């Protein structure tokens, strides 16, 4: 059997240590030999055009993957998916495409069937061509029992949340316009994403957004529920969370 590894990426562990912990435990229940890695894939340097730095940083991640002898990396971040997917040394699988194959834990199936919320689904533009991920997300939401609606621009025609391309630090005004425009696309008030950065963008665009891990592992969302705190907009909270996630991975993997 091939050795599996899991890496959550950067923004997700900065957003939800509890989500990371529960996800690693869930995966480990299916793959007892699971490896866990927390490190950036280097995508930000790639997007900036820093070729040398990207090679150095991606190389550092590859070394970790090699050290763990992983044959198949399970990723929860769409940027990681794109950066890793062409590697010939291991296979890369999206967590969202994998979950339908593994099945959700019994205790979460149908948990939201009485929710009065209708979620609009926001697909990540970086994986607009990967329909197995789109299908997986819809499968998960259906298994949980949530009602959903598709915006007009969805799946392969989805629109950017405004975060992509490293524009936020240099052209915040434009990024905000893109964020608000995407929020205006949604047919319902509640939005579900599968990228923590997308969730942050939608929040900054005055939308109410949840990450799909919030829905899988957290309380059932009802109309009166407030969306989770925007921890990514607070550097201190984000780094504290990242630190906590690191500990959670270590603990869950090593027991």
């Amino acid at each position, binding site marked *: 059997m091939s050795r599996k590894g899991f890496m959550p990426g950067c923004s997700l562990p900065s957003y939800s240590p509890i989500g990371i912990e529960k996800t690693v435990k869930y995966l480990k229940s299916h793959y007892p030999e699971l490896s866990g890695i*927390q490190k950036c894939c280097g995508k930000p340097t790639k997007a900036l055009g820093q070729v040398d730095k990207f090679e150095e940083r991606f190389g550092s991640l590859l070394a970790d993957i090699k050290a763990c002898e992983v044959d198949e990396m399970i990723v929860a971040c769409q940027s990681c998916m794109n950066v890793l997917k062409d590697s010939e040394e291991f296979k890369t699988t999206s967590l969202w495409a994998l979950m339908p194959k593994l099945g959700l834990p019994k205790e979460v199936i149908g948990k939201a069937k009485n929710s009065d919320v209708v979620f609009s689904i926001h697909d990540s533009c970086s994986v607009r061509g990967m329909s197995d991920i789109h299908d997986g997300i819809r499968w998960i939401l259906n298994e949980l029992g949530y009602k959903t609606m598709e915006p007009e621009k969805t799946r392969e025609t989805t629109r950017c949340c405004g975060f992509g391309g490293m524009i936020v*630090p*240099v052209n915040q005004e*434009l990024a905000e316009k893109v964020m608000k425009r995407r929020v205006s696309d949604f047919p319902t008030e509640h939005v579900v994403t599968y990228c923590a950065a997308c969730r942050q963008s939608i929040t900054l665009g005055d939308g109410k957004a949840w990450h799909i891990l919030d829905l899988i592992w957290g309380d059932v969302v009802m109309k009166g529920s407030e969306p989770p705190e925007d921890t990514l907009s607070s550097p201190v909270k984000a780094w504290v969370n990242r630190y906590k996630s690191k500990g959670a991975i270590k603990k869950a993997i090593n027991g």
Partner: protein
Amino acid sequence: MKHNDVVNSIAKDIAENCQGAYDAYCQSTCPMHTDAIGYVNLIGEGKGEEALLKIREKLFLPGTLGRICAHPCESECKRNTEYKQPISIAMLKRYATDKFDDPKLWDLTKKTSTGKKVAIIGAGPAGAQASIELAREGHKVTIFEKLNVVGGMMHVGIPEYRLPRNIINHEYTYLEKLGVEIKLGVEIGKDIKFNELTDGYDAVIVANGAHKGNKIPTKGDDATGITTAAEYLREIALTHNSEIAGKSVLVIGGGDVAMDCARSSFRVGASTVNLVSLEKEKDLPASHHEQVGAKEEDVIFNCGYGTTEIISEDGKVTGVKLVECERIFDDSGNFNPSYTEKTLEISCDTIVFATGQIVEDATEGIVKQGRGGRYEKNNDTMETSVKNVFVAGDVAGSNTVIEAMALGRKAGLSVDRYLKGESLIEGRDFVKEGSFKTKLDLPLPEGHKDELRLEGEMLDGKIRKVTFKECDAGLTDDNALKEAQRCFKCECKKCLPECIMLTEYSEYPGDLFAKFLETGNFDPLVAYSCNMCNQCTLVCPEEFDFAKFFGAIRKDMVKANSGNSPLKGHNAINIHQKLGFSKLFTTKNKGGK
């Protein structure tokens, strides 16, 4: 900064092939390049006054053209080429004008006086347009018009039931407001010598139109009761009467002028009107709506016949002998009709030859004339071989009002340069000074449907055929809105609604990339404002890979800036990355036993 191959090749491809630069089919086909797609869509958005202002950017007589323009724009409309249901562009122009035009909105700005004087012969559409171009440039313009009315053929050729005269007169007041002087009832060569104009003015534009009828020599054509379209329509236009017309009129010709003659005949007392054309009905050159109008008014069509003889009794026309025409053009494409043996005789007491018009010289032989009396000239600049004399309109080869206007504008632009001592050629794009074929090549919009064209409310044929009152009431508010909304919006700015960045930093991508190739500079802020989401590429008919370009040029920018982004804001990413790779925040756990 030196750029890598990916940057250069993508930029070149986009700069050269982006369809954003190409005009819509309707707009490029219009000889005046009127922004039809623009005003149609403004009407569709309920912005009537803005639509009117857009029309007036190019046309000083939108109410007139809204009624009688040959509207070549509609022939090229994608809804015509695909479904034979073109947008009623001309009628929408009329709607915007009837509803929203107000002299207070007219643009009367002009440059300070140059002290130069220009004489224009003819107050038709060509002379008027030329006068506008020149007056706006600060030149003093005087128009000499032989008739006692303005508008030329629009006033004495096009029937009043299609174009009420108060509309022409009102729209021509624009010229006066602009300071153009119009002298009516002055015939050059008779009242004033041509060389008085060439001597007394800095430049002269000859635009006196083609007002002489053309009669095809036919056996028996010396009988009485025969006239030409130009003479016939002029008399009817000025008097609402025809001395020559009897009860049974036969019109020879198949174009719009023939339709005008046929339809006007009922209005001056004819009870039977026949139309004879060499062309078969499916090949008639007349506009479709004119053919329909004529049939609704009971004109009898005899298509595909040549006239072999005019029959007369006591020197007075009593009928014509016709022979069926098999082919009009020979294998080489030359006009060379061949006939069958099938013949036909039609009785009539009046014959109108609607077979073209000829130019009558207004220059006392000074400017050389060619076929049909058209003056010889430089086709690009409208200059003649005579010093300071230019030509425009039908005397220079136009066949429709809108073409005449385009030639008027062309002559006006040339005269302005001439008066300023500038080159008549340098920097001009002559292709775009008239009708041209756009390079636009777009697929039809997704999910579109074939929808019927909406037209104006017409008076019933039986009622309108005996009155000179306008027979088309135009579009209602509701229909105008619906009709405008049928527009396919054939222009390629498809990426702009998807990409806020491209919208903010360019007119269209081709423009942005052409500037880059020209200057070698690309604003780093623009390069780093791409979200790299590829939404633009998804809708681009050329599938340009913009994100790849931005990714590639960022590499050049980083290389030129010692490994770092040229934008300070990205320093935060560097710090973020250092932390993201530090031991404090990373972990690797092999797991298992």
